[in-house]
């Protein structure tokens, strides 16, 4: 377990933000931590969607239960949090 900083690039928001997460966090937990600083602040919630995480520029999302420690992400690297429709 270790604190791990990432840059959050949240779909629909205007700025990259620093988020501090834990290497044991899953990608769903990372998305939730990122959402705290964007959703209901400058981005409207989207009940019809879940939030997925990917490396900046990647087309594939990380598996939702993948841990940060297993993702290959570097400290302060930018991740994109993207709305994905559930239906």
């Amino acid at each position, binding site marked *: 377990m270790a604190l791990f900083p990432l840059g959050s690039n949240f779909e629909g928001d205007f700025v990259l933000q620093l988020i501090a997460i834990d290497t044991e966090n899953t990608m769903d937990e990372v998305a939730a931590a990122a959402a705290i600083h964007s959703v209901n*602040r400058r981005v409207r919630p989207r009940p019809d969607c879940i939030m997925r995480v990917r490396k900046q520029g990647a087309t594939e999302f990380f598996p939702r239960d993948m841990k940060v420690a297993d993702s290959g992400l*570097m400290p302060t690297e930018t991740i994109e949090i993207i709305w994905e429709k559930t239906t």
Partner: protein
Amino acid sequence: MAVLNRMDWYDLARSTNWTPNYVTEDELFPPDLSGGFGLPQEAWENYDEPYKQTYPEYVKVQREKDAGAYSVKAALERSRIFENADPGWKSVMKAHYGAIARGEYAAASAEARMMRFSKAPGMRNMSTLGCMDEIRHGQMQLYFPHEHVSKDRQMDWAFKAYDTNEWAMIAARHFFDDIMMTRDAISVSIMLTFSFETGFTNMQFLGLAADAAEAGDHTFANLISSIQTDESRHAQIGGPALKVLIENGKKEEAQKRVDVALWGAWKLFSVLTGPIMDYYTPLEHRKQSFKEFMEEWIVAQFERALTDMGLDLPWYWDIFLEDLKDTHHGMHLGSYYWRPTVWWNPAAGITPEERDWLEEKYPGWNDTWGQCWDVFIDNVVDGKMELAYPETLPMVCNMCQLPILGVPGKKWNVKDYPLEYNGRLYHFGSEVDRWCFEQDPERYAGHLSIVDRFLAGMIQPMNLEGALKYMNIAPG
């Protein structure tokens, strides 16, 4: 006794180069400070500039300028203009004084470097006057806001800002340290006077003086006009240096300095001037949008200056033109959302009427920037103020030191431009910022952004309270 006409003696009197016998030329003009670009003294003796002002003329004119500005201030001191000013206008003054006043003293040091170390006698002469200009600007822009300190403690930031680690000040210092405090004399002439002053401040001061007069603040209008007339003269120092470099086969080096400085100047303007023109200035006093102002006064003027000089437009010119409609909206939204961290009180400038104006000037504003503001406004209306303030830091660019941002909402295009260098991951707000860094990475690599400092544990406690303390922003 008959006095010679100025033009009969000026060139001879200005020819102050000599052949050193007791030291080498490199000892007299150390290359790191002089920036001779490998050219001999003789090449620099061809440097010529258009003003050809003499010292007695300078003193006479400057005395009149000072008398004009100070007498307007004295006459209007009891007019209560400050007390009755629109809050947006007060923000303009606070942002301006904090960002500029002490920088003028720093600029005096940069001018002094050209005065002592330039191999071009004409440049040494002009920058002697330029150095005195900058001292005058520093003195005035500290003296004029001082009368307001007792009414509003944020006015103290005119003096204080430069000594703090406030994030916008880190950005301003990073830029000015790069273009004028840590460069040789010739590079200063290109990066400070040609790129920054000709391209931006000269015109910016014209616009700001007009806005001040429109807002009824004649003291500020006269102050700014007084400064602008100096700028228009000493901003001409760099052009002839570029001419010498191009004539001697050094176009590529000259071009790179122009391109790096111009981009940094643009980013600084996007955070300081953009919000002032499109959000802080009361709607009824707005003459042009920031984009219109930039296109009419900066872009056209700069394109002409570069072409006349025989230089190319910077390779990123299309990116720059595209950014004119976006970047400053993000800088405004950012400085408003993180408003506890700036030394002025940003005006939001998003009433329904102001939004109509923004949509007219920037078609699509409501579908992009407006989307973020809608959520923000709902929170304020619903009393959820805890959501209207930040709980983390924005990621900032390792070149311009400003937030990394892009267009939100329906045209979301926010992107990081990362670079791994010597094992450290750097982040940049644009392809151009990253390019600037890559031109001389060792020059910039050691600098820590405010986010780097936070992660290094230099900001304690690691929350907003600690950040405000680190930035010298006291509550209230």
